[in-house]
Each structure stands twice: as structure tokens, then as C-alpha cells.
């Protein structure tokens, strides 16, 4: 595979996609502009803000620091897919109830990062929550409410398992 235009096939939120992409197209631009999945946001475009976070093969990554061409054969999941599957309904509800968002620009990336933490560590401390979301900027909330929301979901999920 070489050249400035490349044919890639991948699954996005469970759907098989085959598209021709420019080599220089980042994953987040591909999702937004070719597939109209605009839930992943474009913020800083150099890996600092975390608004573009998506899952590739089960791991969270910066959508602005990966090329669409690198996702040939990959399994990509976005906030739209996780929402439709009901995987993060409790996190979304907790964010709403605790005012863990205002403008909402960071929220998709924040929720994906929080879900990633809760999948690895069912009972994180507040410090661990802060550390895990350290790569996600929120300019509205001051983070306190976000940490509250993630902590409450961790507790609820842990309780549900008992």
C-alpha cells in the first residue's frame, strides 16, 4: 500500500467501511468528514486536549495523532457507537446529573477516557481518576464535577456486581 490516496477497509462502530482516503487525513477528520460522525471533536490537533479521543482495537487513542490510513483493518469505536450500544449510559447520566459538562466540547473524549479507566480499575481513587483524565482538557467545569461523576459511576457499578 503506498501513494497519497489509499483504499482502506475497517469497521467503525460495528459497521464495515471501505473508503479511499488521502494519506494525510487524520482519523478524526476521516470520521467527521467522510462518515459524518461528528461526536469526536477536533480541538488542538496536536495531542494535548483529548477532545478527539476514540477507541482503536479496544484502546483509547488520540484521533488527531493517528492517520486514517493506519486504521486499515482496524476496529474503530466512537462516542456514537458506545452511546448506541448503551455501554456508557450510566456515565452519561451521571455527567448530566452532576453538571459535569457545560459547553460539552470535551465530553465525548472525557467519557471515553473515563470508561477506559473504569474498565481497567473498578474502584479508582479520586487521585487515580484525576490522573487518568489528565490528558483531557475541560475549560468549563474545573473538573471537580467530572471526578464526582466518574467516582459515583464506579461506586454504582461496583455495587451492582456484588
Amino acid at each position, binding site marked *: 500500500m503506498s501513494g497519497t490516496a489509499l483504499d482502506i477497509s475497517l469497521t467503525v462502530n460495528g459497521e464495515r467501511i471501505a473508503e479511499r482516503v488521502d494519506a494525510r487525513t487524520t482519523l478524526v477528520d476521516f470520521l467527521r468528514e467522510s462518515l459524518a460522525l461528528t461526536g469526536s471533536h477536533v480541538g488542538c490537533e496536536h495531542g494535548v486536549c483529548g477532545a478527539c479521543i476514540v477507541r482503536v482495537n479496544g484502546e483509547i487513542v488520540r484521533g488527531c495523532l493517528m492517520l486514517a490510513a493506519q486504521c486499515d483493518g482496524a476496529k474503530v469505536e466512537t462516542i456514537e457507537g458506545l452511546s448506541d450500544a448503551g455501554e456508557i449510559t450510566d456515565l452519561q447520566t451521571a455527567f448530566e446529573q452532576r453538571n459535569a459538562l457545560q459547553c460539552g466540547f470535551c465530553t465525548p473524549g472525557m467519557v471515553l477516557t473515563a470508561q477506559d479507566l473504569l474498565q481497567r480499575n473498578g474502584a479508582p481513587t479520586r487521585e487515580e481518576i484525576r490522573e487518568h483524565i489528565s*490528558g483531557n482538557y475541560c475549560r468549563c467545569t474545573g473538573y471537580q464535577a467530572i471526578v464526582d461523576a466518574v467516582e459515583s459511576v464506579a461506586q454504582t457499578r461496583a455495587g451492582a456486581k456484588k
Partner: protein
Amino acid sequence: MKPAPFAYKKVRTLEEAVALLGEHRDARLLAGGQSLIATLNMRLSQPSLLIDINGIAGLSGIAHKNGKVEIGALVRHVQAEGNELIAKYAPLIARAMPHIGHPAIRNRGTLGGSIAFADPAAELPACLLALDGEIDVAGPKGKRTIRAQDFFKGLFETTLGPQEVLTAIRVPAAGKDLRTGFAELARRHGDYAVVGLAASARGDGKKLSDVRLAYFGVGNTALRARKAEAALAKGDIDGAVAGLDLEPYDDVQATGAVKKHLAGVLLRRVAKQLMEPAA
């Protein structure tokens, strides 16, 4: 802010990568991409070709052999972070890992990429310097090994040749008397350091020898503070701080004077880690 156009080629062998680097002098190697793609987005770099080396087999292993720990160039930070061999035999690298980037960055970023990029405020080049590590590279004339102290030349500059590919890094496996210390000050956890310090020494009780202090964020490359090392080997922490042989310059994060002060603060913390290791 979008990259300038480039071609993309995913290679399967080192030979292919080396040959393409020869044909396209402005090509760049794509490993984790966590620094490279940011520079492409900002058009600080405009290569005509990206050579994606992620499909090359044999560059993702971590092994303990011949008294050394060898880490393949494509080992990702997340993989190193949870690795038992690294925790046991390369504890300094294990200590540094949580400071490197954020979870989504660590899932993609590679150890080889961090070394080859040679950011002066990055953790891993300093760790290699503190451990007297080595770097394996492959090029048109075959393979060679470069000591860390000879590898980092200047700001984002290494002795890697234009057609060479970094394939692995290697550090001596920790013996019973190896002590390590690590401390970093960053504005936000996971960001590049304002000042950081990676250190190793041999220890016998509180007595230290072979002290190696490698600072980062204080110059064009990671730097040893040799006068401070000598003072610390005599057990003189105050003397080490007072005689700290660094001349950091001002940058966007702090003035040189502030950095120098912070370097002394870190030295006291790291000296304690070296002299009083947790049992």
C-alpha cells in the same frame, strides 16, 4: 491545521524501510506517531513520504538476556508500563513510565520513537543516559550499537544516520546493589517536564558510588551533572545542590534561574530515593 500532502507506505521489513529512506531523503519513519503527527499537523515537518514501520515483525519484544534488558523499538509505553521484566530489571524505566504522556498517548507512543525523537524534555533519553544504555540501529551497512552518551547530539538531534532505523534499546539488568531515583516537575501530570531528573547509583547502606544524574528539560539534550554526582558519592547532598553544574536557559515554561532552583529541589528528592530505597 492539517498536514501537507505526503505519500504513505507500510513496510514489512527493515531492509524495505532502509531502502526507502535511501530513495526519499526527506522521508520520515512513522512509529507511534505521537510526536511526528503533531509536527505534521502543525506543518513543522513536511516529508514527501511517511514510512510506517508498525508492520515490521520482531521490534516489539522485551527480553532479559546476557545481563541486559532489551526493549524493541516498537514496544509501546503501555506495554512497558505493565511489564514484569522491566519492573524487575529496569526499575528506573518503570519509575519513569507513568510520567510519560497520558493514557491515550501511552497506548500509541513507542519507546524507540521517544529515543529517536530526542526531545530534551523527555524522560526516556535521560533514563538511558542515567543507566549507561545502548541503542541498536540498522542501516544500509548493517547493524551497529551506539552508547546513549554518544547518541544524543543536540536539540532533537542524534547520531542516527539518514538511512538508519532505531531497532532496540538496551540497559544493564539491575543487580542487587542498583539504586534508582526519578523525579519530575510538570505543569500537568503527563506533560513534558519543566525539569526532571533520572538517576542511578550503586548503593551500600547510605553510601553511594557510580552516581549518574541525568537531568532533562534543562538544555538541548538530557545532561549529566557530574560535579553533583561526585558530591553525592561523598554523601554531601548540600554540596551537590550548591555545586549543581547546570546552566538551564529560559523557555516558555520557566526562566533558567527557576529551572536551576527546581533542579536542586529534585536533587534532594532523588538523593533521598537513592540513599534510602524502600525495602
